């Protein structure tokens, strides 16, 4: 059997694939963060909480309204997005002119409150959610059995990420967005409703997190802490990719998932640290991140 670093090549391939699955979540979450930071200048610390809300949303839609996975996957992000609109309209918009720190503190506080409320209501052991019937089972890839659902996660998140990238970088709407980011006053003078665009951007960013949560629901136990468990890594991903870079966050998310996966075979004890090690190295060499531009 061919080996790499003393590990069979099959094991390597399967770990890369699993890393891609985790990377898909990192990519979707960091993409939302990047979009929000780019336009609103807000470091959205509540992002993990919206991810958790997406998963809980899916679970609640099933438990209380009897709506299956596919409905939930559409509805949960919409609900999370609507909640985002509420937050932006009532709280965040007062902070745009202040230092980043204020936005960070507000969203961090929100995250703690929401997490606490859910913990009070549901405990931490979590709620079970079944894989939808159509995606049950696994496919034999020769080197591993890949559960069909995990393959779907990679495909769905790649499609969503690339669509987002396309809309922002290649369409007229995206051009407005980017113009609003560069110079809001001037853009407004051209007749673009910048405040509404800002609101919708925030809603879209958190809806992405909600979608990721809905996707994650069948593979992890849905619990109130799932957001804060993942968000620190996602922040590291954003820092490595470069704050505000769309393509950067997608690519970094996926590749860090893979690197983390490989660490789990080579030296499992370091698997929760490796991302931060890379972050430190990147910051030393390229303070603006791999894909970021220095201002």
């Amino acid at each position, binding site marked *: 059997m061919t080996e790499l670093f003393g590990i069979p090549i099959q094991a390597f391939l399967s770990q890369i694939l699993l890393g891609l699955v985790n990377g898909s979540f990192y990519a979707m979450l960091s993409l939302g963060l990047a979009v929000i930071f780019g336009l609103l200048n807000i470091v959205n610390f509540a992002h993990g909480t919206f991810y958790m809300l997406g998963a809980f949303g899916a679970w609640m839609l099933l438990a209380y309204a009897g709506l299956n996975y596919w409905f939930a996957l559409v509805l949960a992000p919409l609900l999370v997005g609507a909640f985002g609109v509420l937050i932006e309209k009532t709280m965040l918009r007062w902070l745009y002119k202040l230092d980043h720190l204020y936005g960070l503190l507000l969203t961090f506080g929100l995250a703690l409150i929401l997490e606490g409320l859910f913990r009070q209501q549901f405990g931490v*052991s979590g709620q*079970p959610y079944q894989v939808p019937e159509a995606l049950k089972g696994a496919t034999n890839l020769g080197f591993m059995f890949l*559960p069909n659902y995990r393959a779907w996660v990679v495909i769905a998140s790649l499609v969503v990420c690339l669509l987002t990238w396309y809309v922002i970088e290649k369409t007229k709407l995206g051009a407005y967005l980017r113009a609003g980011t560069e110079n809001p006053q001037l853009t407004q003078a051209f007749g673009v409703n910048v405040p509404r665009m800002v609101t919708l951007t925030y809603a879209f960013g958190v809806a992405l997190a909600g979608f990721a949560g809905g996707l994650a629901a069948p*593979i*992890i136990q849905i619990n109130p802490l799932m957001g804060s468990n993942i968000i620190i890594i996602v922040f590291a991903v954003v820092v490595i990719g470069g704050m505000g870079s769309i393509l950067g966050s997608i690519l970094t998310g996926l590749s860090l998932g893979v690197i983390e996966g490989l660490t789990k*075979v080579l030296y499992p004890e370091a*698997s929760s640290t490796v991302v931060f090690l890379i972050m430190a190295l990147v910051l030393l060499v390229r303070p603006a991140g791999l894909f970021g531009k220095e201002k």
Partner: protein
Amino acid sequence: MKRQLLSALVASAFALAPVAMAQPKPAAVGKFSDGIVKIGVLTDMSGLYSDLGGQGSFIAAQMAVADFGNQLGNVKIEVVSADHQNNAETGANRMREWFDRQQVDMVTDLLNSAVGIATAKVANEKKRLAINVGAGSTRITNEDCNPHTIHYAYDTYALGYGTGKAIVKTGGDTWFFLTADYAFGHSLEKDTADVVKANGGKVLGQVRHPLNAADFSSFLLQAQSSKAKIIGLANAGGDTINAIKAANEFGITKNQNLAGLLVFITDIHSLGLNTAQGMLLTDGFYWDMDDKTRAFSKRFFEKAKKMPSMVHAGVYSATMNYLKAVKAAGTDDAATVVATLKKSNVDDFFLRNGKLREDGRMIHDMYLMQVKKQADSKYPWDYYTLKATIPAAEAFQPMSASRCPMVKK
């Protein structure tokens, strides 16, 4: 030192007061430090273990105090609680503060082995009592044993012994461990591996995962490629739940069996019987065992909205037996209370054939349970079938193997 000074001051204040001189009361206040018996519940209130301990442990301690009558003669009994956030430093600091400034006499729950070991040292340093119910590491009554710490409900030896032996005997003789990378996980892995080897089994390997790992698929694939018949989960709480869930998803459970080495009933409740059915596990308590356990559990359910875990029931029992010992000893001085507890045979709804050993280990019967199939579960929380009772004398590490310096050989 500070406490002695304080009690000396209190004593002299009483000596100077003419009224107190004239009428010394029989249940002298001076015997109870600070004139109050205060119990601290130090636990994980918000993290991954907060369902199996947490608020439920606080409720259990309050129930015990209420059942005891809230008073000891004319001395008030009080319960306080705090969140150690699964951080040994935070836990030890809070315990120090409780002992130094808040008149706490005994601290219980103390789940999480890192916290458990750190707080045992504080108890010894301050000469007050720690009754550890929630932590699993055997170090608490071995390398880190001390005269002010009691290990009450279970430990990794008891878990590994019960589950490991039963599984090897029924043919599960090759093992691979998924181990939480901290004191508890290491201890559980080692104790179980020892039992497996002693019974003729083989350990093919292990992988150490970080506490609170989000994704277990990588680790499980490594376990799968080891071709071991049994995958031992040397972890707890949310980690065990996510590992079992992922093992089902990857179809690993078709060819290999999982052994949850520390599984609480709250975990089974969360997973659902469809995912957990058939699993063997060792527990120190099951709510539906007999009338005595049901009576307590139903009262607990009223307050906590869930059935008690081994930790919850253990905290109640520990608090109650502590108060009884304080009453019998007529003082809340830790050393005297421990001596009183060591002399008595303890038997209640939780402790069956309970006996406090020289090394601080409370031994009692443990149970080998099997998770029921969905179809066999008749009512809510009807989850386990009792496969075997492991007698107290056999369930815990024998004294001959003790590494505790207090044990004379």
